């Protein structure tokens, strides 16, 4: 199992450019997440998905879009990149129980993508 993989590892964008951060997991997890980590800060949730075709906003969704057409892939799209989007981006996945309750599901994280917008 490769776990959660992310590409690219590093990227430099110019202001106004667009790009897609790729995330793939091979653990058949239904839940997937995108977080960003700004310098000296903890991770903040951008978007999440509980299954193919279902996505929802997290704490900091502005400037981003996501799609989930398959269980394995959860790409994050940046439109019109801005310096405020300079950050490290982490994708994560877990196996979630739809019925809720006292269910613990460990989140497995990818290695991150360091993005700089100049």
């Amino acid at each position, binding site marked *: 199992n490769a776990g959660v993989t992310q590409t690219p590892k590093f990227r430099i964008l110019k202001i106004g450019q667009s790009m897609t951060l790729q995330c793939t997991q091979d653990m058949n997890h239904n839940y997937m997440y995108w*977080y960003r980590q700004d310098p000296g800060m903890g991770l903040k949730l951008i978007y999440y998905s*509980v299954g193919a075709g279902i996505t929802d906003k997290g704490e900091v969704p502005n400037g981003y879009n996501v799609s989930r057409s398959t269980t394995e892939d959860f790409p994050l799209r940046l439109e019109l990149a801005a310096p405020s989007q300079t950050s490290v981006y982490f994708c994560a996945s877990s196996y979630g129980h739809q019925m809720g309750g006292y269910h613990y599901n*460990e989140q497995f994280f990818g290695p991150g993508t360091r993005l700089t917008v100049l």
Partner: protein
Amino acid sequence: AQTVTQSQPEMSVQEAETVTLSCTYDTSESNYYLFWYKQPPSRQMILVIRQEAYKQQNATENRFSVNFQKAAKSFSLKISDSQLGDTAMYFCAFMKPGGGADGLTFGKGTHLIIQP
């Protein structure tokens, strides 16, 4: 919404010493999960230990243990016999019940340095 606070931006101890990292949180939930994650310079997020709020017993994983005080909303991490490889950022995180569909809430982290 819940918040997680780590009040120690950086800590430094000698190898083999014991160190305690602090975390407090605020939530209106009665049942939830708490975690400590380690982030070494490689950036990889590594789960260190977890605690279910409905369990009174403090979690332990080898040299790592927690002191969970539900009434005080406190969740500290104790690292015994610290090693050079423990040098990393440590993040406290909160998860609501229900399978974690809406993700984790993280604190700002504590940079732990183990001196030889």
